[in-house]
């Protein structure tokens, strides 16, 4: 009996013991090496965790400087997370059929608990992504962060930008209201715009690449159920998948390319060294200032020759606190905005009557301004060239100096300012001209379309931007200055054109100072 009791006792005691240590044993199993207490174990947490090991075990303090990154890339990523989660919720009620989609969205707005907020959050965080991805790009450009092995990651970044635009656009079409329908009409016809070119060469009947693209996109010749199915497929599977893959590569490359960019000269905190100059080795797979390495797991004297290491802190908890803070900030911002501003929902799609003005979503209105000169150039040619130009930036500017410093130097700041002013003048000048005097077709109605494709305000603007940045390179003798100039002008053009398309264009795409002056239909 005693024995039995003993055994029972020990069994129960073990059980109670296990119960007592549940917290630490679960934490140990979850974190693999337990709740960290030392720098070593902090490092181990990161290295051993599936999600966390995407980060370095140690993080350079420059990475944590809010004024350096402004957290823009991170915000973009968190917006994506919010979009994915809220999108998943919306899918519970949404059904991609032209007979039910509109009612489903109405029901989400009206009777689903928190439905309106969820829809707003999805909509606004998606659109905010566009802004933050662009700002993130601007940060990368202005801090020269596309250099020293990061060239390809810049390319991935541009891909993500394009994917962000497209996924937003496809989402716009799902409610199947007037906005959706006419945006789909316009977009599918932009897809068909190469017809302008094939028409000129008279080969449309043999090789109608534009028409084929349009029909593949729509699953027909006009928007209908098949189009909605396809757009839905793009929106919830293909594009998210593309984004996830591209984003995976993007993050992986950040690590492999040596972490976030940082200036070669940095005042290290407490290092006692005013200026640290690592050996200058650009490019390469293993730059000297990489932030991971087994030797960093050890304490004490290390074979490191790079003082850089001294300016790091353990990612756990410093980096993670920062990330959580930015995530909550993003979420708070999105929810606050969504609480006050509702996502639009117009009348049910009506193929007989276009909206007047029929506008694309705002982020495409810069392009719509351009397509109002020529559908092909504005919808495909110019965006294509702009993207090509952006892609080429890291390959055409390879100057290693001023890496990781905002605007490189004083001259860079001046060039950015100057390009901002000149670019604004050029865009506004072009717009003022077109609004007041029209373009070729208004002067010579019989002019051949080729002339308009070749010479239109959009092309001239692009030509001017390229020419001006080349002039800047020639004047300053620095390709870096050219890159700053080019990107600044790109950004200014995008913003001004978008503003014009959104606010200043009214019915019949006529110019109005504000929408309060629009004539009533």
């Amino acid at each position, binding site marked *: 009996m005693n024995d039995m009791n003993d055994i029972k006792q020990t069994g129960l005691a073990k059980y109670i013991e296990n119960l007592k240590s549940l917290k630490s044993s679960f934490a140990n199993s979850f974190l693999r090496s337990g709740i960290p207490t030392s720098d070593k174990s902090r490092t181990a947490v990161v290295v051993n965790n599936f999600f966390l090991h995407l980060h370095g075990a140690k993080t350079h303090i420059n990475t*944590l400087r809010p004024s350096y990154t402004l957290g823009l890339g991170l915000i973009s990523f968190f917006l994506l997370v919010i979009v994915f989660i809220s999108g998943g919720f919306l899918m519970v009620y949404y059904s991609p059929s032209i007979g039910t989609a509109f009612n489903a969205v109405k029901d989400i707005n009206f*009777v689903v608990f928190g439905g309106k907020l969820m829809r707003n959050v999805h909509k606004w965080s998606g659109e905010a992504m566009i802004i933050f991805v662009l700002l993130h790009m601007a940060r990368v450009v202005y801090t020269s962060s596309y250099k020293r092995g990061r060239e390809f990651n810049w390319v991935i970044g541009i891909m993500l930008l394009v994917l962000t635009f497209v996924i937003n656009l496809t989402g716009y079409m799902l409610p199947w209201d007037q906005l959706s329908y006419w945006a789909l009409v316009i977009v599918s016809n932009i897809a068909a715009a190469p017809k302008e070119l094939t028409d000129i060469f008279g080969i449309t009947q043999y090789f109608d690449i534009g028409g084929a693209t349009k029909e593949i996109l729509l699953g027909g010749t006009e928007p209908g159920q098949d189009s909605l199915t396809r757009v839905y497929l793009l929106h919830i599977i293909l594009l998210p998948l593309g984004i996830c893959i591209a984003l995976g590569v993007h993050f992986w490359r950040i690590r492999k390319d040596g972490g976030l960019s940082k200036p070669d000269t940095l005042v290290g905190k407490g290092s006692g060294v005013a200026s640290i100059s690592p050996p200058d080795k650009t490019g390469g797979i293993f730059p000297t200032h990489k932030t991971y390495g087994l030797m960093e797991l050890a304490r004490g004297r290390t074979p490191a020759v790079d003082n850089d290491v001294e300016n790091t802190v353990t990612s756990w908890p410093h980096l993670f606190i920062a990330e959580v803070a930015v995530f909550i900030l993003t979420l*708070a911002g999105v929810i606050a905005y969504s609480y006050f501003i509702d996502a639009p929902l117009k009348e049910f799609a009506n193929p007989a009557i276009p909206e007047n003005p029929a506008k694309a979503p705002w982020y495409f209105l810069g392009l719509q301004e351009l397509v109002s000169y020529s559908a092909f150039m504005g919808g495909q040619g110019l965006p294509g060239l702009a993207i090509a130009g952006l892609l080429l930036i890291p390959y055409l500017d390879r100057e290693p100096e001023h890496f990781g410093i905002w605007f490189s130097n004083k001259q860079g700041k001046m060039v950015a300012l100057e390009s901002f002013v000149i670019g604004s003048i050029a865009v506004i000048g072009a717009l003022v001209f077109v609004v007041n005097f029209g373009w070729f077709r208004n002067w010579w109605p019989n002019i051949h379309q080729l002339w308009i494709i070749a010479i239109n305000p959009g092309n001239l603007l692009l030509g001017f931007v390229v020419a001006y940045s080349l002039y800047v390179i020639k004047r300053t003798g620095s390709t870096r200055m050219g890159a700053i100039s080019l990107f600044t002008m790109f950004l200014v053009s995008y913003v001004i054109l978008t503003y014009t398309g959104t606010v200043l264009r009214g019915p019949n795409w006529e110019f109005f100072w504000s929408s309060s002056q629009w004539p009533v239909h």
Partner: protein
Amino acid sequence: MQSRFYLSLLLISSLVLLTFVAIATYSALTPEWKQYQTEYKDFLIKNAKDEATRERAEKIDIGIQQIYLTSMKKADRCTSCHRGVENPLMANAEQPHRQHSGNYLENHPVAKFGCTICHRGQGQAMNLREAHGEEHTHWDFPIMPIKYIQSSCALCHDFEMLKHEGGGHVAKGEEFFRGKGCRGCHKLNGVGGDLGKALDGIGSRARAYFPMKHVVGDRTIYNWVKQHFDDPRQIVPESEMRAFLTGEESDLLTTYVLTFTSEQMPRNYMLIKNIVMPRTDGESLYKMYCIACHSDGKASIYDEILKRTIPAIMNPSFLKAIDDNYLKKILKEGRQGTQMTAWKVDAAGLTEQEIDRIIEYIAKDRPAAKTEPFDVAKFKADVKRGEELFNIRCALCHGKKGEGDLGLNLKNPVVQAADPAFLAVTVRDGRAGTPMPPFGKDGVGLIEQDIADIVSYVKTLSQKKL
């Protein structure tokens, strides 16, 4: 130091997030309709006459009310605010709690019919602004003004029944529609003229279909239709439509026109009590198709909109000159170059029988006396002299090239194909009831040779270019 920055950021953001989550939850938990339902419940509890009523009132669940009409896939949630709609205790309450007026709900239980079938508005919506479809809510079918509400009755009921059982307005409107010749210009169900737009489905068209620029007040299709009847050119400046009705009469016609919806009610909703064959006597047909232009047909009238004189087709002098076959030909084929529609079954959709009945009606006052014949062949016509006479005598009304203005368009194929003797008689005797005077010896005093010359010239007009 950096961690402190991020920790404070985290704290502040978390507090902001918490605040907004709290606010959002609160507003999700306190929607507009809940307030109305609470009011309703409190009202019932307060005014309960006996304990049992009171107990029942206290048991009222507060929650979204929905009437789902399976056959129409319609969800009406109006009763979430209008909970008292079937409650006799609410007969004198303020909206939204008031009981439905009249005894309509006896035969139209809310559970079967919902609300928006009759009242329109957005049944799915859960707030007043969007449910009533006010302007800028992007809903095409705002709540229907009560003065036009009877148009909804006609979705299921016939006009004969409506006339006697509470649908007087829409039945009256239907009478106007039949009596004012609307179908002379507008097709409905494939029958009617081509001058105006077809009316099918007009009552359920999207708001954007109507040019709302000149509409006074709310830009709804109800106001558009009504104001367009009052003064068509005020709403559509280039309209050629006639303005027959104003004020209350046009309200009635509006009520009727709003019944032209493209949606078909499910069969189990329809209730046709007194099927009355459509009126197909000559007079009714004349009123349905002809009267808008020809009015009583006794006198010809120059029309400022159509810019021509509309012939007096029921004037004895016209009928005396024209026999039934000729009338039938014109009715069937129309008159090229004028607004006269081809009424045959292929075109405007009238059957042979109907056309015959109309002709019978038009020709009922034909005088027995025959006209004195005019033997044109007897005269050797001089076209050149005819032209001179024409320019002096005829061109003032018929135009220099016979293109017509106050007078008839003489280049018209019907005139050109007409028997010269018929034309000569017309010139000689004129047309009483029209501005066409007699040019023969009883009138202007032209001799028969002159008339023959003019007729011979008129016959050459078709070759003249304008």
